[in-house]
């Protein structure tokens, strides 16, 4: 997979291919030159939300979409789900056009805010979504029970969602996303509204999904969360892809080296490399230090603001 190659942003004509004859089952999501322009009623261009996005998400990875507000993350997710139609380019999910409804059989989606029917109870909610997957009654009931247990809402399963707290709604939202045991899970801001415990559980669950062989695409503002769970990330800014790569590579600072040691007094800090052994201490690790994702993210945004239209140089060649 090309990780850092970004194709030119020129719009290509929309191709009307439903399925990809060269479908590689290891590539779950593929976007080619995907662009989206929002227009007003008269067809005049309002916003260019996404510019020629090329992405590939491989089976079994946790892929993070990062970017400030209005960067095109949600647009990308909506295009992948068929909630929006691309202006040009195409989005393929499991080798099928994103607007094709049958692809949804294998997808689970947790929206940014849990857009659920407030007048339904937790049980009714899961029963409803289970029916949409044409699941037989018995399977549906078992699955609903299991998921309600898993998100810890058994005690409130007969209450209408309007009585739920934000965190509880988020949990039931996650449960509905997993009702069909999906192969691909799209999570829009999965930890928003969750308390620290809930956030931890959500992150554990995402890692658990990966362990089960599922593919996860998530977008989040909470960089620490992304850093904790994602294998690869893409950073978008004003509709353009600014960075794409493995989290550990992106966060590696190759010009510097980090030494981790222990048992050395504070006064010996100035002569670290030459003196450690002289003082009889032991070197624990010797490697390149890592910045935080937050720092990387802010650097890219700052650089993009200073030099609009350019790909960030901050982490190129670190794949």
């Amino acid at each position, binding site marked *: 997979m090309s990780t850092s190659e970004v194709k030119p942003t020129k719009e290509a*004509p*929309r191709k*009307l291919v439903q399925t990809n004859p060269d479908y590689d089952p290891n590539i779950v999501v593929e976007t080619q030159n995907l662009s989206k322009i*929002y227009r007003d009623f008269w*067809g005049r261009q309002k916003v260019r939300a996404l510019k020629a996005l090329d992405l590939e998400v491989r089976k079994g990875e946790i892929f993070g979409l990062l970017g400030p507000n209005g960067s095109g993350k949600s647009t990308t997710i*909506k295009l992948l*789900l*068929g*909630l*929006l*139609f691309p202006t040009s380019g195409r989005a393929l999910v499991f080798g099928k056009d994103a607007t094709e*409804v*049958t692809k*949804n*059989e294998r*997808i689970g*989606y947790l*929206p940014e*805010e849990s*857009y*659920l*029917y407030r*007048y*339904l109870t937790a049980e*009714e909610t899961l029963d*409803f*979504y289970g*029916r*949409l*997957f*044409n699941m037989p009654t018995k399977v549906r009931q078992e699955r609903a029970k299991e998921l309600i247990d898993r998100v810890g809402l058994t005690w409130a399963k007969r209450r*209408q969602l309007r009585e739920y707290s934000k965190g509880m709604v988020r949990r039931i*939202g996650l449960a*509905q996303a997993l009702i*069909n045991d999906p192969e691909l899970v799209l999570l829009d801001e999965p930890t928003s509204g969750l308390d620290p415990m809930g956030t931890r559980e959500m992150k554990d669950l995402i890692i658990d999904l990966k362990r089960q062989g599922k593919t996860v695409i998530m977008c989040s503002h909470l960089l620490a969360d992304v850093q904790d769970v994602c294998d690869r990330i893409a950073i978008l800014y004003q509709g353009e892809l600014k960075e794409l790569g493995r989290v550990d590579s992106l966060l590696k600072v190759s010009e510097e080296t980090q030494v981790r040691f222990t048992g050395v007094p504070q006064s010996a800090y100035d002569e670290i490399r030459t003196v450690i052994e002289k003082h009889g201490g032991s070197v624990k690790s010797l490697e390149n230090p890592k910045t935080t994702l937050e720092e990387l993210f802010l650097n890219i945004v700052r650089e993009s603001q200073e030099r609009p239209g350019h790909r960030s140089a901050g982490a190129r060649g670190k794949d």
Partner: protein
Amino acid sequence: MVVEQFLNFGEWLPSAIFTFFLLTCALVVLGTFFGYLVAAFRHGPVEGFYVVAQTIGGAVPDVLGTSPRRIYAIAKLAAIEAIRRKVVIVTFILFGLALLLGGWFLNAGSDHPDRIYLNFVLWGTQLLALLTALLMTSFSLPDDIKNKTIYTVVTKPVRATEIVLGRIVGFAAVGTVLLAVMGLLSYLFVWRGLSHTHRVVGETQTLASLSDIDPTLRLNRYGQRVSDSAIKSGETTFDSGHRHMLELIEDIREKDSPPLDARNVVSKTELPDGRIRYERLIVEPFGGHSHSATIIGSGGPNAEIQIERAEGYFRARVPIYASSLQFYDAAGELKSEGINIGKEFAHRGYIDGGTSMNRNSLSKAEFVYENIGPQRFLDQDLLVLELDLGVFRTTKGEIEKRVLGSLQFESVPDNPEIDPIFRSERIVFETDEYNVQILPLKRKRPGEKLRPDGSVLEQREFDFFEDLAKNGKVKLILRCEDQNQYLGVARENIYFRATDSLYWWNFIKGYLGIWSQMLVMISLGVALSTFLSAPVTMIGIMVMLVLGFNTKFIKGLVSKDNVGGGPIESFYRIITQKNMEVELEPGLATMVLEQTDYFLVSMLGSLTNIAPNFSQLNFSDFLLYGYSVDVHRLAAALAVVAAFCIGLTVFGYFCFKTREIAK
């Protein structure tokens, strides 16, 4: 009420399917063209073509992949939504309040209290049911899209067909339950409101309370005219806004022939000629109903009178209308229509009773009835003919008598050159132009049998079913028997009354009419809400409602050659102060005016075809006037509803499929 003849459903269906097919084709062509214009504007002319082809082609797998379970899921959701959003509960409360308070204001003592009660409940039910349908459907899908709850639905393998159809089914289910409960409550309300009984005015509830009649004036002690066979008369108490007259009548019957009603027989005596003389107590009808009287104990002044509950309100009359009506003028010549007496002509044609110059007028109206058989009449020995005649007087005539008419039956032979003709004697009767007249006729009728050449074969008593209407067809000839007077009839004005249909079943059929209207509204609301916001959907439905309830009027506007031209020409005439009759100067301007009007009127005509004809689905008048809703008419209404549901589902599918949900 004039019940217009409705074709047999089997005859109606092919032409209806043809119209549906033509309309569908026109809409498909228009829709595709419009869709292509939009797609071409967005994607360019070539790409636009592919987009349209892809959208239409994609409908096939979507339809094939439609799952009943998903439809059920969405239907259930729609139903829960309607219930938990309290739309239905508020409707119930409003309806309950209307029933509770309405009873205070309805006048049970009027001429036809049943019509007032039924009109109230039917109108209330219709209004509330349609309003509920409007509110349920206009807000559901637009709110789902606005609140983004639709995101979690369309990201599941749900087809657009299921989203549209599921909603229609869900709301229809809620509406059906709502209507069923409202119908039941209405039935109980009407039954309770009209059910009443009376007591006899007098010191005792016995025959002693009846008083004698002045034999010369035929007036009772209250100054009311009594019937010819009355011996004694009395009155009931004033209950439910009215009172009835009681009459002890003399009823002489053939030997071994039972009385009409055994319960109200006061005495029975055998006459010297072998016939039997019954004395029976009857309660005179009032305001469309009557009561049975029961005599308890042996006849004599101490026999107790018990007046039963009101009966006759809940009727579902089954009229057998003539299949054809022909008018003949004074010279006996067949005419395409009756005599025109002026304003009323549009409905009834008139026949004359001769003038002093031409005493022997041959003017007559001939009705031909088909499918007449004994199985259609409950009492096969007594046929009931109902007449709703118009009378036009050129002189006031005899002040105490009404205008006379006569009826005569004649067989309609299958082969007029060979088969004999049976003709009954004329039955002369007094007309009553203010009421529907009920003429009971005996099955055995005196008359003559004629050869095909018209010579008399024999004269005797003939059987109505065996001789006159042997092949199921019978001719009825109406004549006016008073000189200088005219009788007016339309085809629906004289009909045989077959066995009444079951009232509760007719009541259900009446509500099925409202149900049909509601279903069309629901389908329309769901289809419009796939691409319009809630307020615009509401406006759209209301426009369709106005069009639908006034289809007849609009079709009239379109079909008639309107004097003074269409809207543009009329406006031009107003501002230039030209009256409607003045010819406009020929020229380009006039041509533009006329062509614009022609275009507008044609557009209006097309709109009436698309808008549902709600009057076709409205059976309230049948219930109000006590007529049975014929099954053919009901079947046609249901077929129309099915056609609208299918058409609107397809329309809604394409609208939803081609819109961007997340925009």
